[in-house]
């Protein structure tokens, strides 16, 4: 389980995360939603130990260190691979550094997405780069897979393929924390939704609870964010009036 206790993070005096408390048990697919700049990426980077922070983050009861870092993997739209290397070279490198690296999963996913094994990654298209990024995160044998906007730039068919593959290959002990703006697309397969705004967790609900209450995820998010549906029409009316 990932336990986040009283996590705060500031950038040059500006609060990016404020007293975040969150628990991510094993075997869950959790959606992390929020506007741009809400703190989703910062939260993930803090979990990975890429940023210093105030508070506590425990990974199966211990702080994140080089001893247990292999339990976490990360897929980001910024891409964390080495652009000059081929997928094959990445596989060899990751086999050395991630003891539970799954060669079978790597081969299967590379075949499924028809990605070339011997071409440097810098020559891949953006979609292919995203696919490879997620493949690497899924193959490192991590128990907790953090994904930050992993499908930015992929077409709809591609994304749908990924959702299906993700659901099909995840083991019961694997946890996914998925940050995305594609709320409707992922609402079908996440088990829980966490909402973040201005660095604070403002909503945390299981999809089962939502279903039982007869609401959908988009409705829940709009409700939590106090989204005013008439905002656009009012603004348009005002603009039209001014012009007249």
């Amino acid at each position: 389980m990932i336990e986040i206790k009283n996590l705060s993070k500031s950038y040059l005096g500006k609060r990016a995360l404020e007293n975040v408390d969150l628990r991510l048990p094993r075997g869950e697919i959790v959606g992390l939603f929020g506007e741009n700049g809400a703190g989703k990426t910062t939260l993930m980077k803090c979990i990975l130990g890429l940023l210093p922070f105030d508070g506590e983050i425990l990974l199966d009861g211990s702080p994140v260190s080089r001893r247990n870092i292999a339990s976490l993997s990360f897929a980001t739209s910024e891409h964390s691979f080495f652009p000059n290397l081929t997928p094959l070279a990445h596989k060899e490198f990751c086999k050395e550094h991630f003891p539970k690296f799954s060669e079978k999963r790597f081969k299967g996913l590379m075949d499924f997405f028809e990605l070339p094994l011997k071409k440097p990654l810098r020559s891949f298209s953006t979609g292919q780069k995203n696919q490879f990024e997620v493949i690497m995160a899924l193959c490192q044998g991590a128990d907790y897979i953090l994904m930050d906007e992993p499908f930015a730039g992929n077409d709809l068919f591609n994304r749908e393929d990924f959702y299906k593959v993700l659901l099909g290959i995840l083991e019961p002990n694997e946890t996914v924390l998925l940050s995305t703006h594609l709320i409707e697309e992922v609402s079908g397969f996440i088990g829980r939704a966490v909402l973040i705004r201005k660095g604070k967790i403002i909503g945390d609900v299981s999809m089962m609870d939502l279903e039982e209450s007869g609401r959908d995820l988009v409705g829940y998010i709009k409700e939590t964010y106090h989204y005013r549906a008439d905002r656009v029409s009012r603004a348009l009316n005002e603009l039209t009036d001014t012009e007249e």
Partner: protein
Amino acid sequence: MRKHFSVLMLIARSTIYKILGIFIIMGAVEVLLFYYTLSEYPADRSFSQRTTGLESLFAGSRISWVFAIAFMAVTILLCLTGCEFKSKPGYTLRRLMISERSIYLWQALYSTCCYLFLWAMQLIITLALCKLYTANANASSLSNQTVFLAYYRNSFLHSLLPLDETSRYIRNAALIIGLGTTSACFPFRQRRGKICAGLIILVSMIFVFFDRNMGAFGNDIFLILVSVTTAAESLFFALRKEACHEA
């Protein structure tokens, strides 16, 4: 140890062929320039009409310029290895079971070896060119000391192989180690949004002060000090505790 070795291989994989390519191009261009200059000045004429021989041929063929370009190309290549432009490999490097400091030290070792090979390659090429010259020159105009005198009189050749000038050997060793440690620090800093001023200073000083005649002791001491200072600063930056938490 395999983990450490794989990091070294990761660095080598993305540069080794390009560096070998630079060495080959450098060698080919230097041989062509030297051969062209040699053909312009036939051996018998140059010796009868000029007091300087082999060393003026080296100066005339602009080999030191080719070396300077190759040096810059190797430096740029080594500095860009591990930098973050379109992707962020730093995220992966910081999630490995070995520390980013260890990665820095491996990169510093690799870069130092590359500069050592560049120096050795240039030395081999100049010696080979001397051999070419002595093979083509008129026997009456050659002496046992022709090559020795060239390395004594020509400032570039002397800086490459300083004969019995110990301070120049120490200077060259300090420069190679200094360049290795500072160029490895370049991507380390770049991943943290910082500029490696030490490398820029060191490279600038090398361009200005590398090519010096025999006996420039003060110049040698100055370059040693610049090299040691920039290397120490780079090592301190990369090995301090806070570095692992700077994004």
